[in-house]
């Protein structure tokens, strides 16, 4: 019944099936919405956060999705600035993924702060020394850039595009996309770095703190690299997931492998410096605080296995897999490496958020543990559901994949 709205020359499932799918996702979304209303009404006392864990799942989630959404700015940078034309096949998808990730992260942030009514203080009363201020400004600005990048795609919808004004608007926006891609790349580099800086400046938290050169430029670029080392491959994973779900071919493997190669290269550079960083931290910085590597870990929940999983299993291993052409060209291996890569980066963000504040520094204090509760899971789930909804609608009605028509003939 909504066939007229489809992009030219593509097939989509029946409206009934689509409605059922959307209803299924909406159920998750509504549950999260309920949790969000409870949180706004009663405050974040309803979450699992406490005096020791002021940061938890939400901040981890924010940092992780922002890293995973990095495919947008980096692919845009490569496509529009470095003119790697092949990336046009996937660039639309990276924009949508990026938009979902950033807008979702901003929504989570408004829940996470104790006084949402005052959220705008971040812009009006900024503390220029705070990394968080930098993050707030850059994320907001970059989110606007993503909106600007997303709008022409929406305007290319068949009916909308038939309105001349919108058609010309979309066209003009496309023409100037290189400019926005450049701004986006600039802003993103800043805030991805600042997100690392957020932890790197915590003088009182030896797990995250980095001194002097190791904070700037070192930690900043480590975070930028880690984000671009996973963002592109995350887009590939999203694309492949959509292909499996819809049974249609959307992007050719050559492009995916290219994205894998890009991510792999970045990840390799990242992991090389990350190893150096960790080594210097453990052998030089930590002893200066009187603490040892062993003291940074506790039991299973905060055990060393987390760090080894992050750096070796989900860092070194996927890096090697992605830069080795023979492995990368095997779809199964590419996706496996991609999944490991994304897990590794998320784990990194988790450790910097939670492990950092879990470590008891006062020698007479004890380890406390944190587990997110339903309210945090439900609202995080809401953001994921929101992503599914946006993506489903975009896929169904917007010409996201330029190759789709040819590949499914």
């Amino acid at each position: 019944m909504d066939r007229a709205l489809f992009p030219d020359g593509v097939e989509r499932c029946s409206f009934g099936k689509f409605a059922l799918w959307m209803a299924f996702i909406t159920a998750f979304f509504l549950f999260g919405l309920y949790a969000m209303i409870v949180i706004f009404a009663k405050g974040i006392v309803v979450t699992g956060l406490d005096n020791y864990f002021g940061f938890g799942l939400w901040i981890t989630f924010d940092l992780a999705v922002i890293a995973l959404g990095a495919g947008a700015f980096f692919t845009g940078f490569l496509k529009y600035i470095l003119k790697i034309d092949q990336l046009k096949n996937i660039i639309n998808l990276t924009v949508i993924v990026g938009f979902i990730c950033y807008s979702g992260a901003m929504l989570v942030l408004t829940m996470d702060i104790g006084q949402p009514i005052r959220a705008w203080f971040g812009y009006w009363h900024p503390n220029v020394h705070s990394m968080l201020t930098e993050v707030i400004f850059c994320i907001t600005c970059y989110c606007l850039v993503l909106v600007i990048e997303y709008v022409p795609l929406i305007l290319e919808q068949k009916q909308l595009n038939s309105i001349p004004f919108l058609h010309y608007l979309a066209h003009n926006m496309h023409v100037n996309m290189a400019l926005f891609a450049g701004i986006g790349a600039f802003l993103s580099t800043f805030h991805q770095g600042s997100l690392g800086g957020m932890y790197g400046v915590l003088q009182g938290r030896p797990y995250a703190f980095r001194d002097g050169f190791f904070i700037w430029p070192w930690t900043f670029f480590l975070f930028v690299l880690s984000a671009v080392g996973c963002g592109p491959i995350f887009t590939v994973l999203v694309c492949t997931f959509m292909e499996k779900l819809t049974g249609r071919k959307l992007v050719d493997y050559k492009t995916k492998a290219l994205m894998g190669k890009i991510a792999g290269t970045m990840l390799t550079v990242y992991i090389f410096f990350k190893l150096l960083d960790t080594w210097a931290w453990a052998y030089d910085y930590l002893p200066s605080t009187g603490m040892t590597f062993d003291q940074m870990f506790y039991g299973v929940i905060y055990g060393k296995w987390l760090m080894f999983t992050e750096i070796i299993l989900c860092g070194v291993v996927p890096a090697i897999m992605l830069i080795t052409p023979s492995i990368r060209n095997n779809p199964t291996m590419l996706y496996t490496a991609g999944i490991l890569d994304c897990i590794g980066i998320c784990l990194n963000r988790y450790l910097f958020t939670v492990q950092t504040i879990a470590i008891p520094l006062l020698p007479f204090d004890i380890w406390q543990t944190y587990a997110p509760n339903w309210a945090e899971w439900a609202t995080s789930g809401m953001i994921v559901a929101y992503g599914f909804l946006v993506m489903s609608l975009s896929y169904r009605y917007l010409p996201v994949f330029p190759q789709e028509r040819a590949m499914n003939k």
Partner: protein
Amino acid sequence: MSGHAVKEFKVTWGMVIDLDKCTGCGACMTACQVENNIAPMADASNKMRTLSWMLVFELSNKKAAPDAEIAYLPRPCMQCGNPACVPVCPVVATDKNEEGGIVSQIYPRCIGCRYCMAACPYHARYFNWEDPIFPKGMEKALSPNTSARPRGVVEKCNFCHTRFMKAKDKARQEGGNPEALADGAYMPACAEVCPTGAITFGDLKNPEHKVHELAKGENAFRLLEKLGLHPQVYYVSKREWVRKLGDNYAATGHAGAEKKHS
């Protein structure tokens, strides 16, 4: 050690807490709660959610009976010379700018992002998980010195800053110098109430104040000095095991409180 500079003030309020005199009776915590209008909590045993600007830790020498020893350590905000919490605040809800060197926390500005809590290794900062609802009538016994905070903002010990302001007004009224208060003219509630006088309070820079000398004593130390935050709260103990619990020594194995004044 860290790149940040320690901001100097002509007057630097500080505490010297004698751990050999603290019996852990809790009067300081009670007086603090009263002075700062902290509502009683239905489950005060849930220490992960309570607000205790002043918190008395129990220290143990970890020896088996009969050699076991304990000590009590009252922990207010350290009012660090190089605070970890101040530079991270995105909205300037906390600063260390005022003569006296007290780290402020401004509730109407705070947005409750809790970044400062993540930054403070002393757990001196607390988030208002719930609105301060007092049992019916008890709001009549609120102290005029501290505003009641809504839920969703961070708060912490400020050395009973309003008492500082009132002491200055008193000095002005009596023709004294509000910028050079006499020892004892300004006392936080905890120091005032302590029945064993374990908490000495004053201007660390003023030789006429007792804390000036006490902070330099051979048994004086600060918590986690190696992190370079330069707390303005000093502790004193003649017991070596107590001093050793003031910082981390696992990496070096050094005993005692080695000084890292800079």
